[in-house]
């Protein structure tokens, strides 16, 4: 187990810069998620860390050792792929033992270590099967066991859950998370599923076109996005165009006046998360950011209700509210019925 320090890492294909001078430090035992839209360079970055793509420049330091140009088989990095990539001709036992044998681990130690690794993923009973005789979820757990059996310094996972169905994805995700915490293994995982990212990552790295847009905790990225791209990529968001006037308040183009906890100069948009919207059936006596509108429509989202509200100036704000809160507020879900909303200044993020 070790920390990783990546600096100035870059890779160009022809004239296309797939990874554009990335700096990233991952602490020992940390679970970092790299996410971003398709083609933003996540896989390329991971492959440079694993040693399959030679970077054009930059450095990768693993536990104080410069591994930038070290061949993959000397790096001691565990890998897990979206398509499992198990050795099809070897049994589950031999798949997990493969890395141990390559490392010349003592013969008598191999069996217990394979069993240990497999029991960590709850598969010790399937050692004699071939990969094709397992389900997708089981195969992916074998792949995880195979990667951790070598006690790697770092575990790299490229969309490991994308091939699993929704229910299994949640299950393997939680197993992966608790395994990672238990073993304290430094982990970098690529995903483009933001729910997955938010729920397992200690820190998230959001990339776009080969660059890092923001690094931070899930809370940072969700509630304090660095820019519009981050705000838009993570979760659902209301954006209102406008500017900060002399009264220090944000005036939207549709005439909504919002006070915000911070006023970055030159802000052109206000971002409000749907969960931050409060609704009332009667105007609020006082307080900031009380706005009146009319109900446009609603959608049931599992246990919550998504409510679209038309503002007088023609803008539309979406709120996500529990049925119970709606009931307590006395709001009826009738189109065009008046409704009063409010937002705490700390939930108005100006960008």
């Amino acid at each position, binding site marked *: 187990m070790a920390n990783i320090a990546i600096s100035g890492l870059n890779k160009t294909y022809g004239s296309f810069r797939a990874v554009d001078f990335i700096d990233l430090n991952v602490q020992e035992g940390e679970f970092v998620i790299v996410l971003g839209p398709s083609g933003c360079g996540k896989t390329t970055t991971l492959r440079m860390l694993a040693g*399959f793509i030679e970077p054009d420049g930059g450095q990768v330091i693993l536990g104080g050792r410069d591994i930038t140009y070290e061949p993959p088989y000397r790096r001691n990095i565990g890998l897990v792929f979206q*398509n499992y990539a198990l050795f099809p001709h070897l049994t589950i036992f031999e798949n997990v033992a493969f890395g141990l044998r*390559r490392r010349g681990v003592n013969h008598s130690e191999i069996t217990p270590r394979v069993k240990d690794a497999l029991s960590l993923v709850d598969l010790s009973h399937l050692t004699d099967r071939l990969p094709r005789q397992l389900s997708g979820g089981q195969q992916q757990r074998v792949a995880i066991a195979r990667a951790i059996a070598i006690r790697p310094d770092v575990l790299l996972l490229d969309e490991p859950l994308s091939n699993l169905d929704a229910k299994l994805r949640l299950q393997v995700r939680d197993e992966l998370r608790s395994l990672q915490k238990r073993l304290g293994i430094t982990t970098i995982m690529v995903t483009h599923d933001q729910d997955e990212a938010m729920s397992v990552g200690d820190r998230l790295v959001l990339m776009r076109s080969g660059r890092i847009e923001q690094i931070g905790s899930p809370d940072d990225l969700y509630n304090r996005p660095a820019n519009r791209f981050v705000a838009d990529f993570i979760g659902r968001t209301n954006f209102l165009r406008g500017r900060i006037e002399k009264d220090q308040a944000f005036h939207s183009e549709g005439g909504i006046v919002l006070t915000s906890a911070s006023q970055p100069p030159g802000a052109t948009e206000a971002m409000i998360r749907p969960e931050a919207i409060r609704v009332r059936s009667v105007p609020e006596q006082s307080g900031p950011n009380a706005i009146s509108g009319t109900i446009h429509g609603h959608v049931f989202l599992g246990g919550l209700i998504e409510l679209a509200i038309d503002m007088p100036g023609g803008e539309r704000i979406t709120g996500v509210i529990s049925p119970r809160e709606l009931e307590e507020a006395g709001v009826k879900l009738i189109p065009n019925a008046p409704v009063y909303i409010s937002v705490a200044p700390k939930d108005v993020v100006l960008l």
Partner: protein
Amino acid sequence: MQTKPIGAAALLIPATGLVLVFMGLPLIYLFRYSLNQYVPGEFIVDGFTLENYRIFFSEAYYLTGMWTTLLMAGAVTILCITLGLPIANWIARQSGTLKTILLMAVILPLFISNAVRAAGWMVAFGQAGVLNYVLLQLGLISEPLQIMQTPIAVFIGMTAVNLPYVVLTLQSIFEGLDENIDFAAASLGAQPLQSFFLVRLPQVVPGILAASMLSFILAMNAYATPVLLGGPSFRMMAPMVVVEIMNKANWPLGAALAFILLATTVAISILAALFIRRRY
């Protein structure tokens, strides 16, 4: 969903019919001929005799021919696979223009007939040929080597004929391998050579079987190369069939030899397939 297999089977009917008419019937005729009697000077004498088969199994001339054929086909196939595996693996890992050039280099020899290529080898291997000239000039030998008209010449010539087929077959299999599996092997500590033998090779066993059968069958039935490079005293089965039919006008024995050659080839291919299937 239910009608799909039936539809596919229906599509195969014309092809099956063609195979039956143009391959099955001649085979039946061939077999029928092989049971006829040979009367010198007469073309076809109908009969039902196993005499032609008895001749094959009792005369050293024919048995040696079969042995030579089997050994040559086996040796050529082993060499082709040994050379073809690394070449195919290497080509599969290239990309872009280099790959196109390499594939063209493999395919181009297939455009030239075996006889013409054998003529090329004659120029290369002859007493005054290119190889002897170079070796003499280098002082490695003092007398020209006798390569032409030896089994070695046939061995080299047939390997050259079969290698492109083997490389193309294996290359397409290597091409289909998942590169993530190679990445996984490397990340677990396998060096390139270990990766090749422990991970890539076992995945292409069915392909090796297919390529071996292809090479073996081609070699068992080779005609031009053994005739042109092996000289008059070197005998393999296909030339022997021709000798019986064309030179001795012994159709029944020729047919029996052809039938034995066919049966041996098919039997060995089936056994090899069963053996490999059982082990993997």
